[in-house]
């Protein structure tokens, strides 16, 4: 529904006989409307790719400067034909999985504790603020000294990158528990443990998942940048080498691989978020 149509949607009356509040509109929506997001989205991508292809085909610039989508697609296929790519994907994937996984577990626990225990928050706030406002990329040289150029240094960067958005959002979720709900729970004599499990935690879920989602972006940045600087294998390393050896289509194929991963993970988390939001009335 567009903003313009908003005024054609009738306000819902507070009639107590309605079992559910439903979205209403004065005109019967056409069947095609429900596919609009997909159709328009696909069309705009197709148009953009076509335009890119046409400009590339004109060959104003050599392939090195401006490869067309077909060149990138060819490079992409070639990557998977040789099979070397699986080592890179495996390496980056493992780094991402371990680093991000650790960030989720430790970030969630730390965030919940900081939200729930004010004094714990006072103690950790300086560190969280320090690391969150420092681009963690600058620590890569230190991690390479500590852990070498293999996976552990990458894992450290990814972990630190994803950790702080998760901590900060989780903490905000706990802190944002509605005072009225806490009062109700206390009035019924709820124990702290019950308040935490039944009121605070479920209320924080949207915040926590947002933290996870932001964490993915930071984690992916960490993978690529850490591998650009020094690595033996990995998709970031592939991008770096392809760039340095003027294989622009291959480089872009690597970029698409990273972007695709990010979009996929974000979509999965978005789905999970929606599952937890069944109680929200649809306002779309």
């Amino acid at each position: 529904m567009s903003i313009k149509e908003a005024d054609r949607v009738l306000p819902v009356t507070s009639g107590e006989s309605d079992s559910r509040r439903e979205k209403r509109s004065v005109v019967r929506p056409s069947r095609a409307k429900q596919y609009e997001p997909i159709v328009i989205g696909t069309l705009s991508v197709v148009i953009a790719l076509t335009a890119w292809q046409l400009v590339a085909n004109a060959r104003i610039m050599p392939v090195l400067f401006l490869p067309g989508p077909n060149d990138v697609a060819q490079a992409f296929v070639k990557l998977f034909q040789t099979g070397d790519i699986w080592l890179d994907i495996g390496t980056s994937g493992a780094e991402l999985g371990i680093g991000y996984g650790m960030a989720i577990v430790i970030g969630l626990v730390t965030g919940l504790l900081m939200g729930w225990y004010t004094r714990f928050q006072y103690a950790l706030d300086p560190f969280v603020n320090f690391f969150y406002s420092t681009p963690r990329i600058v620590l890569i040289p230190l991690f390479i000294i500590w852990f070498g150029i293999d996976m552990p240094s990458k894992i450290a960067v990814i972990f630190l990158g994803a950790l702080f958005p998760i901590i900060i959002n989780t903490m905000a979720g706990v802190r944002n528990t509605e005072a009225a709900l806490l009062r109700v729970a206390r009035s019924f004599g709820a124990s702290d443990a019950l308040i935490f499990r039944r009121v605070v935690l479920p209320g924080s879920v949207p915040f926590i998942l947002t933290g996870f989602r932001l964490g993915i972006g930071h984690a992916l940045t960490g993978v690529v940048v850490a591998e650009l600087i020094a690595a033996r294998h990995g998709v970031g390393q592939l991008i770096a080498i392809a760039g340095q050896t003027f294989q622009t289509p291959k480089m872009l194929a690597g970029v698409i691989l990273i972007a695709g991963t990010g979009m996929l993970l974000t979509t999965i988390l978005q789905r999970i978020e929606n599952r937890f939001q069944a109680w929200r009335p649809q306002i779309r």
Partner: protein
Amino acid sequence: MPDRSAKLSANGVGIEYWLHRSKALFTAVKGVDLTVRPGEFLAIVGPSGCGKTTFLNAVDGLIPIAEGSLTLDGRDITKPGPDRAMVFQQPGLLPWRTVLGNVIFGVEAQGTMSKDEAITRAKQQIELVGLKGFEDAYPLELSGGMQQRVNLARALLTDPEMLLLDEPFAALDAQTREMMQLELLKIWSQTRKTALFITHDIKEAIYLADRVIVFTRRPGRVKNELEINLSRPRDLRVKRDPQFLTYEDEIWESIQEELAVPAERLIAGMPAA
């Protein structure tokens, strides 16, 4: 000396708040003396900000009293307990739980009932407050009046000895409020629980209560009290009864003296004078 026959007994109750921004101690109520008899429906009215809600929170045990004594069945009130249940002004429902899930939340928090029993009894309670068929609806799908029914059912399910109601209908539109008053009386007449009802609505207080207590302006204390001798069951027509209007005049005059604005500067024809 606490009155032995009383359900709730307040003697010289004072409640103070520390205001963080003003860095000052604030006295909400001071020297409150009142009793609630077993099975009685008592309403407290007073000008806004007179500390009546604060007093109710102390009865619930959510906040401590600074001086005096506050006893339920002769025992000091120090913390919330299963012998009291509050119906809040804001429904305070868990948005991610259905009506059924919210109704059982009170007993779940108290840990006094098995889950199966809670669900069975909750369904009866939901029917009693007129929400049959809405067990699986989420709070955000309900109107304000229906949310307050859930709020009421949650309190009733804990089967308290005393029901505390903090302006539960204040946020509802006029018609819904009248319907809810009628239904509250119906439910109350079936359970006959001792009830302490806070409101700023004089008609509401008279219509519901056996006795109405007027609070002074802050720091609040009991200014006067009035037995309401209107026969029960009461339907909404009782609000036009001459006796009802006499009570209303009396309470209104009493409150008027407490308002910061002098009476002669009030616009003529404000509440039913």
